[in-house]
């Protein structure tokens, strides 16, 4: 075999390796001009061999390779270290958009002659990055769910244990008093037992309802703010009439998409809450509405009731948290609202100037945004 044929043979050999590799591969001379590129390079970056070979790498495809980070790698790092591995570069390419690439390079001294060549392999990790980000998001969500479940279990076990202590203790008092023929404490003890049993029944009902939120998936439907307000006001109509509350609903045409029953529960609980904590207000008012704030739709239920101190503004959303031990209910209403708002990726908070100044419960529901309506508005 002649030396010429052997050279041609090894070139073919090298090229067939290059063209077999799935990752885009490019070979540069020491002046960073393209000697050749793999088939996958041309396909991936949508460029033609004629417009590539002989060009300075930075000039390829309308200078879309003039990436400062790549320049640094090729001109500073490579001459020093003769190799670099797994350098991540993010860049927007004309034909294929934003890509995250992993770059590996080797600088090789050719046997014959003094010139050096550079092998540059490019791995597109954009998809992997997306999957990693999605995984991280899911993992965070799971952690949050877990924490929520732990808090739920803690609260449930503590609050359910309390009435058990009462029932068992007073039953023993009853047994002892019966044996001793003493009857004067009977009624009182029975009342404690009944109250504890009732409390336990309420807690269990509320716990069951709370645990169902988010477990049952109902196909989303379109509802208007008017629908939600109507349902809420109808559900607490008795209370509203009894207390003489004046109600007002604004911007009723705003629509939402979601589980109608769950969404309605938000307004129902908030309106009920507003009625419950109206205090001695002579002209009780409740306003239901929505307003744009910082590019977001913020829904609100505003009242002119007893208001809330700043230090309780977070606490009130906790499961079975009550500010007034004497008020009716187990303290689940706002926890339910918090949970539903959370299911729709939203936030809920309360604004109040302080005691006696009324409260305004504000919330967002990005997951229930009605996209068709939003698009319709643009046109």
């Amino acid at each position, binding site marked *: 075999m002649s030396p010429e044929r052997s050279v041609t043979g090894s070139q073919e050999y090298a090229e067939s390796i290059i063209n077999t590799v799935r990752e885009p591969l490019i070979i540069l001379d020491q002046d960073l001009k393209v000697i050749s590129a793999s088939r996958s390079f041309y396909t991936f970056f949508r460029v033609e061999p004629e417009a590539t070979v002989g060009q300075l790498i930075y000039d390829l495809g309308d200078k879309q390779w003039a990436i400062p980070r790549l320049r640094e790698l090729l001109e500073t790092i490579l001459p020093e270290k003769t190799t670099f591995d797994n350098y991540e570069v993010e860049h927007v390419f004309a034909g294929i958009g934003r890509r995250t690439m992993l770059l590996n390079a080797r600088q090789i001294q050719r046997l014959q002659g003094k010139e050096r060549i550079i092998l540059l392999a490019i791995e597109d990790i954009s998809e992997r990055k997306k999957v990693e980000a999605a995984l991280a998001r899911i993992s965070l969500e799971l952690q949050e769910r877990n924490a929520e479940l732990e808090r739920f279990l803690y609260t449930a076990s503590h609050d359910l244990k309390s009435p058990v202590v009462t029932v068992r203790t007073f039953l*023993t008092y009853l047994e002892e008093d019966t044996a001793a023929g003493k009857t004067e404490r009977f009624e009182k003890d029975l009342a404690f037992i009944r109250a504890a049993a009732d409390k336990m029944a309420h807690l269990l009902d509320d716990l069951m309802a709370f645990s169902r939120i988010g477990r049952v998936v109902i196909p989303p439907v379109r509802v208007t703010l008017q629908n939600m307000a109507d349902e809420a006001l109808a559900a607490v109509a008795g209370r509203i009439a009894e207390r003489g509350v004046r109600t007002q609903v604004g911007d009723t045409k705003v629509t939402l998409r979601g589980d109608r029953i769950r969404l309605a529960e938000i307004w129902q609980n908030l309106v009920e809450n507003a009625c419950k904590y109206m205090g001695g207000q002579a002209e009780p008012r409740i306003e239901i509405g929505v307003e744009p704030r910082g590019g977001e739709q913020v829904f609100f239920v505003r009242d002119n009731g007893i208001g809330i101190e700043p230090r309780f503004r977070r606490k009130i959303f906790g499961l079975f948290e009550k500010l007034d031990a004497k008020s009716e209910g187990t303290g689940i209403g706002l926890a339910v609202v918090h949970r539903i708002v959370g299911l729709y990726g939203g936030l809920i908070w309360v604004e109040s100037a302080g005691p006696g100044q009324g409260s305004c419960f504000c919330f967002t529901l990005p997951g229930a945004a009605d996209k068709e309506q939003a698009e319709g508005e643009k046109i």
Partner: protein
Amino acid sequence: MNKEPMVVLLVEDDDGHAEIVRRNFEDCPVPSKLMRVADGQAALDYLYRRNDYSDPAKAPRPGIILLDLRMPRVNGLEVLKTIKTDAGLCVIPVVVLTTSEAEMDIAKAYESHANSYLVKPVNFAKFTELLKTFGYYWLEWNQRPVELK
């Protein structure tokens, strides 16, 4: 020696549980004067003699505080922190009495300088035994600093 019975401040939102503690203290051979408030906010009002408790005769200074953790408005841990960071109140022993066995609650209570942590037993005999032992230990045997005598 004519010793005044020690004032025990019970901070407990549950009426049933408060009644159980009251009956046990009545039956205890060591005399005590039990004062009860129904939540954390009331406990702080009592200790600082504010609002309903501005009359010192209605709010005698306690020699010991029995404190529930999970309560409306201000919870037990917040009360505990306030007491233990107040130069005038921090000498008062605070014994947590709660249904919670959660490690987190126990750890937080001691971090906030609780003097003891007791879990309310679900069993009647044990609850009675616990309160009796509490009476002997804290009201009889335990030595208090002079300002609490």
